[in-house]
């Protein structure tokens, strides 16, 4: 009996490891500018050859009346060309309001969408930020999926984005 219980515990301890987890932290820098608007940010994963796109998050002015905030979605040029123009925003579970300067974390579980659709392979995490009356910046963090060991990778922006960190837990 004791043996059975410990076996069950072992199963419990092991099974979460089948679910990998991705934590993305995005630093939006404080900027000393005359006119500041919080940036539009798109976060997606694309296969190394650019073929398959998985959208993770789009922060834009969702509260603007009559959905007028969609007017500037095209300023996230790469995102717009790759996937944005195919979508009708807002999209449940994808779009959310813009965020203030600071570090923001978003977490994804491999057993749930959108990561559940990610087949094993080489990918890039892509983050693109575009700010009204400001600039645009795009960062890439390459990674392999699923992670075999804990992974920690980052990229550092120069203007519109601070440090982007990707943590993968097997």
């Amino acid at each position, binding site marked *: 009996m004791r043996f059975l219980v410990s076996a069950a515990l072992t199963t419990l301890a092991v099974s979460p490891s089948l679910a990998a987890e991705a934590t993305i932290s995005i630093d939006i820098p404080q900027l000393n500018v005359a006119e500041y608007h919080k940036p539009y940010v798109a976060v997606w994963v694309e296969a190394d050859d650019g073929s398959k796109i998985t959208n993770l998050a789009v922060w834009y002015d969702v509260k603007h009346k009559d959905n*007028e905030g*969609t007017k500037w979605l*095209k300023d996230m040029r790469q995102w717009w060309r790759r996937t944005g123009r195919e979508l009708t925003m807002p999209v449940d579970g994808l779009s959310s309001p813009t965020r203030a300067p600071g570090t923001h974390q978003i977490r994804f579980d491999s057993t749930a969408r959108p990561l559940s659709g990610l087949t094993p392979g080489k990918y890039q995490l892509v983050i693109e930020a575009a700010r009204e009356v400001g600039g645009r910046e795009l960062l890439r963090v390459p990674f392999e999926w699923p992670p075999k060991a804990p992974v920690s990778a980052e990229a550092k922006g120069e203007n519109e984005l601070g440090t982007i960190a990707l943590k993968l837990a097997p």
Partner: protein
Amino acid sequence: MTRYLKLALIAASALLAVPAQAHRAWLLPSATVLSGNDAWVTVDAAISNDLFYFEHHALQLDNLSVLGPDGKSIAPENLSKGHYRSTFDVKLAQPGTYKLMVVNQGAFASYKVDGQTKRWRGKADDLATAIPANATDVKVSEVQSRIESFVTSGKPTTETLKPTGVGLEMIPVTHPNNLVAGEKATFRLVLDGQPASGVAVEVVPGGIRYRDKLNDSKVTTDESGTFSVTWPGPGFYWMSASVRDDKSKLKDAQRRSSYAATIEVLPQ
């Protein structure tokens, strides 16, 4: 001159094509890639030397038409003609690709009456009545010109990119609102719907005022009328080509058919 030689010369002139043009006619949209549910573009239309500056003539908008993503005509709004440029607005009510175009057709004639050389220019239909019966040395040429630009709200579509089959036209292989610096784009020229081969296409980047060199590039269409351009940088570009042949629908006339498009290349 034998008929054979005459034909050979005409063929040769078709190959030479694109003579140095004094002025460039263009449409310049305020944006070519748009998002949102209330998208508009305002468009400048002018004839100038330098691209894209208003410094010579406003472009006549009498023959302006706008095709919507469903292939149907849309009425442009707020048409206005200034000294150096014309403008109009287009509401992009449906998502997809719009084609803006100014298509002109006409005829030129030169002839002698009582030893004096006269010139006439107007509509092809008026040609018969425009030239006096006692005119000699009559030379007639038919002129077709097509000036285009493209704008897309949301996802690019292709319904509007179909040719009409009249004169020199461009069929985009690469979508004209999906152009990015450093990438190669491919287009096809057709004359009366048939591949226009061996035609020289000139590609000129805008912003001429702020540089010393024109920085234009010339490409020649292959047998299928196809040509490719790799964009050296982002910005608006003006592409143009023209051909001469004897396939005019007017009697004993030469034909000159020209095409020009303004396209926008975005940064990576």
